[in-house]
């Protein structure tokens, strides 16, 4: 297959060749036409063809121009870019070429007419006419002489008898100097003839007009051209009749003309003839010259018009392409490349345009790339923000939300990610945590503190939350602030952990430091007792008995307490196994059913709960502690009831198993509900105050969370969330290794 460009080139080549051939043919035709005007017989035969070629040329040009004109008008109406410029150029070029052409044409026609007229001169014409008259006169004299001579022969011939006529005629001919002398009878019958030329058997017959003239009684004389500058004079007379009724006879003489005279006369005749012909052809010449000139003018005009279209198209087409290219660029298509027209200024312009679009395309691409980079970074940032446990809220200067991450919503108890664009003040309505947060933040901003850092405590239904909060101003345009970013961490758990750790340390120290001296104290008290109490010798024995008893009892109590502490501080290695929590709860609950007191223990277990990865011993202790704690709280309550429920929470995500233990006791005191899991926080008369603290510790070892609250219908409610699998072991390992470190240090 031939490439497109090649094919176009071939097409253009053929087109050019055809155009060139046509132009040459036309030019030749025009040249021939001009030759025709110069009296050339050869070209005359081609005249029709020449005219046809010219007509065809004019027709083709008219067609081309018509097509171009129609296209131009159509483009102009459709306001095709460049059409106005093209129309103006065509008009200008046509005007520029038509004016001089018409001027030249008018002058040329004038010159031709004047020139042709100037060939003809009155004097020359008159001179030639006179010369011709002179020749005619000279010849006329000869003619008259010959006629007279012929008439003189009348008598002689008349006297002759028919028999003598032939020899006498020869004599007469020689005498008169005639070339031929003949006597004709009726119906031009030859009666006798004598000729200078002996080979001429037949004489020159008299013509009809000769006979006609003689019949009218007039003698005949005429000068007859013979061609090649030769003339003869023919004379004829009626011979007088010898007797009435005799046959009429005609004597005809043919005389030669003097060679010199005839030569001169012929030359005069030729000149006169030529001049007369030219004079006659004067108008025809003018007409044909004017016609030829007009044809040339028409051709030149049409060519000029077509040339104007052609040039305008050649000049405008790169400009049109430029305009189209500019439009494309304006619409955002930077890949537009224009073909190079030529190495001229427009070519330079097109080159610059191509350069510009190339650079624009590059710049556009880079802008897009950097935008994509920014987008991806923003996406990354969004992902980071979403995964961040730290709450981040960006606010406009009018406190409407610009962005907020999920953690912020989780900490403040409101889903802020869906409220982007709304005012934080409006969102905070009826949301206690957010309201408090907003009040503190607004307080700072009203005081003009745009950059601040503070630990704030929010009180909600669930409990108190401690937030570490920092605010900073976003740079804006000019002097105005571009908004604020508030970053906050929920450090409640952190503080709790610190407290737990502190308590653990206390417990360990107590167990270590206090338990050791207790045994000697107890032993000493017992020895005192053994020595003094049984004897009863002293009056103070009763006192000793009481005192030692108190000491021993209190030491025992202290030992219990220290044991409980060490129990809190101690933690055996965690052993994870698959445990059915429902079954475990049923087993543990069964142990409390046979208590002497009337107790309603209700189990509501979720059968969908899967097997959970936990340490079964620790879990059992958690359950015991919770039930025991509830039982202790229920002392003195008339209809004690404990509800234990399990639930498979959020089964779609990371599965969580929830255990909820509720009682209908007095519930937590409002001020201690938040520290319910701290050691030695208790509202009860009995107990070590370590039960819930241990529960919390064990739950956290499994990666779970625990919450305490007062139920709406009264009584305390403790809920535990445990991950179904995975995290328990990891958390436990960390805790264990931490503990080992601590032991080593100890």
């Amino acid at each position, binding site marked *: 297959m031939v490439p497109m460009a090649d094919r176009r080139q071939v097409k253009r080549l053929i087109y050019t060749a055809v155009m060139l051939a046509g132009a040459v043919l036309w030019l030749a035709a025009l040249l021939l036409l001009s030759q025709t005007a110069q009296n050339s017989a050869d070209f005359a035969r081609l005249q029709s063809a020449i005219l046809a070629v010219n007509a065809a040329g004019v027709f083709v040009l008219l067609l081309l121009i018509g097509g171009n004109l129609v296209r131009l008008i159509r483009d102009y109406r459709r306001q095709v870019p460049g059409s106005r410029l093209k129309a103006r150029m065509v008009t200008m070029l046509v005007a520029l070429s038509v004016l001089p052409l018409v001027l030249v044409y008018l002058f040329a026609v004038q010159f031709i007419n004047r020139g042709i007229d100037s060939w003809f001169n009155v004097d020359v014409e008159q001179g030639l006419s006179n010369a011709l008259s002179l020749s005619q006169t000279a010849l006329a004299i000869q003619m008259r002489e010959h006629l007279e001579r012929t008439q003189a022969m009348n008598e002689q011939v008349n006297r002759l008898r028919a028999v003598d006529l032939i020899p006498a005629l020869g004599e007469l001919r020689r005498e008169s100097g005639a070339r031929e002398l003949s006597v004709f009878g009726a119906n031009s019958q030859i009666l006798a003839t004598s000729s200078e030329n002996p080979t001429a058997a037949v004489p020159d017959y008299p013509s009809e007009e000769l006979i006609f003239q003689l019949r009218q009684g007039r003698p005949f004389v005429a000068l007859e051209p013979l061609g090649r500058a030769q003339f003869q004079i023919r004379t004829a007379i009626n011979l007088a009749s010898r007797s009435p009724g005799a046959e009429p006879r005609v004597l005809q003489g043919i005389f030669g003309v003097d060679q010199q005279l005839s030569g001169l006369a012929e030359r005069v005749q030729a000149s006169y003839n030529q001049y007369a012909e030219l004079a006659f*052809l004067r108008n025809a010449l003018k007409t044909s010259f004017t016609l030829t000139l007009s044809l040339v003018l028409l051709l030149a005009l049409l060519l000029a018009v077509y040339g104007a279209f052609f040039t305008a198209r050649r000049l405008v087409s790169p400009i049109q392409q430029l305009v189209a290219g500019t439009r494309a660029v304006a619409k955002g298509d930077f890949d537009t490349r224009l073909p190079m027209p030529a190495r001229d200024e427009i070519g330079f312009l097109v080159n610059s345009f191509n350069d510009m679009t190339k650079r624009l395309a590059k710049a556009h691409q880079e802008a897009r790339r950097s935008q994509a980079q920014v987008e991806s970074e923003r996406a990354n940032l969004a992902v980071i923000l979403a995964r961040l446990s730290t709450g981040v809220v960006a606010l406009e200067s009018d406190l409407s939300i610009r962005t907020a991450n999920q953690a912020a919503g989780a900490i403040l108890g409101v889903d802020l990610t869906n409220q982007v664009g709304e005012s934080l003040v409006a969102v905070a309505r009826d949301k206690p945590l957010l309201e408090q947060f907003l009040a503190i933040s607004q307080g700072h901003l009203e005081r003009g503190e745009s950059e601040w850092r503070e630990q704030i405590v929010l009180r909600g239904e669930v409990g108190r939350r401690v937030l570490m909060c920092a605010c900073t101003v976003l740079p804006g345009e000019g002097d105005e602030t571009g908004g604020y970013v508030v970053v906050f961490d929920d450090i409640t758990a952190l503080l709790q952990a610190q407290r737990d750790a502190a308590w653990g340390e206390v417990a360990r120290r107590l167990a270590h430091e206090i338990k050791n001296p207790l045994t000697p104290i107890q032993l000493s008290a017992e020895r005192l007792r053994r020595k003094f109490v049984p004897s009863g010798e002293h009056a103070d024995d009763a006192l000793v008995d009481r005192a030692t008893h108190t000491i021993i009892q209190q030491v025992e109590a202290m030992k219990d307490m220290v044991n409980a502490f060490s129990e809190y501080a101690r933690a055996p290695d965690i052993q994870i196994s698959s445990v059915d929590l429902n079954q475990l709860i049923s087993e543990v609950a069964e142990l409390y059913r046979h208590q002497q007191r009337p107790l309603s223990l209700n189990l509501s277990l979720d059968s969908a709960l899967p097997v959970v990865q936990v340490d079964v011993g620790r879990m059992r202790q958690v359950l015991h502690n919770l039930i025991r704690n509830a039982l202790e709280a229920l002392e003195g309550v008339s209809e004690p009831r404990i509800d234990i429920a399990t639930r498979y929470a959020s089964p779609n995500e990371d599965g969580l198993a929830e255990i909820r233990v509720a009682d209908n006791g007095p519930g937590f005191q409002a001020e201690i509900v938040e520290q319910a899991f701290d050691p030695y926080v208790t509202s009860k008369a009995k107990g070590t105050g370590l039960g819930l603290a241990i529960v919390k510790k064990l739950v956290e070892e499994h990666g779970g969370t625990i919450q305490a609250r007062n139920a709406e219908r009264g009584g305390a409610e403790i809920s535990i969330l445990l991950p179904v699998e995975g995290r328990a072991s990891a958390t436990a390992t960390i805790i264990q290794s931490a503990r080992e470190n601590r032991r080593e240090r100890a």
Partner: protein
Amino acid sequence: MGLTTLLLALSTGALAQDRPGRFEVRSASSTLRDGVHFLEARVEYRLSSEARQALDAGVPLTIELEMMVIRHRRFWPDVEVATLRQGYRLEYHALSQRYIVINLNSGEQSTFATLFSALNFLGRISDLPVIDAALLEPGNRYDGRIRALLSKEDIPGPLQLIAFWRKGWTLESEWFRWRIVDK
């Protein structure tokens, strides 16, 4: 101005004294003599004013007789068997004030005092051999055609250009048909 001249020149028959010319074949017949068909014809020549003026100005005119022998065919177009052209030159000789007629085929020359007699002479065609009878197949029907015309090819160039348009220079008779009989 040039354009006006041109237009004037191109307009035909604009002049009052213009007389149209006419060529007409009045009669034509052939006779068989010694195995050759000889033509006998009468043609009326009447020159137009333009042609007459040109002739008087010394422009020679060529008059042509065009003859054709045609074989008839049934259901088919006729066939040309032979074509014959006879040319005459008519010119005015200013010196002798006579009209000269030259037979271009034979070179024979005749002079006349008047144009009328010259044309009359031209119009009388007799004993012009047309075709050898041996060339005609017996049993077929043959026709002769003749016409007379003023040749435009031999008039001077500038006149030719004009003659192309002008009626006065288009002098042509209709075709005259006669039957060629084998007798």
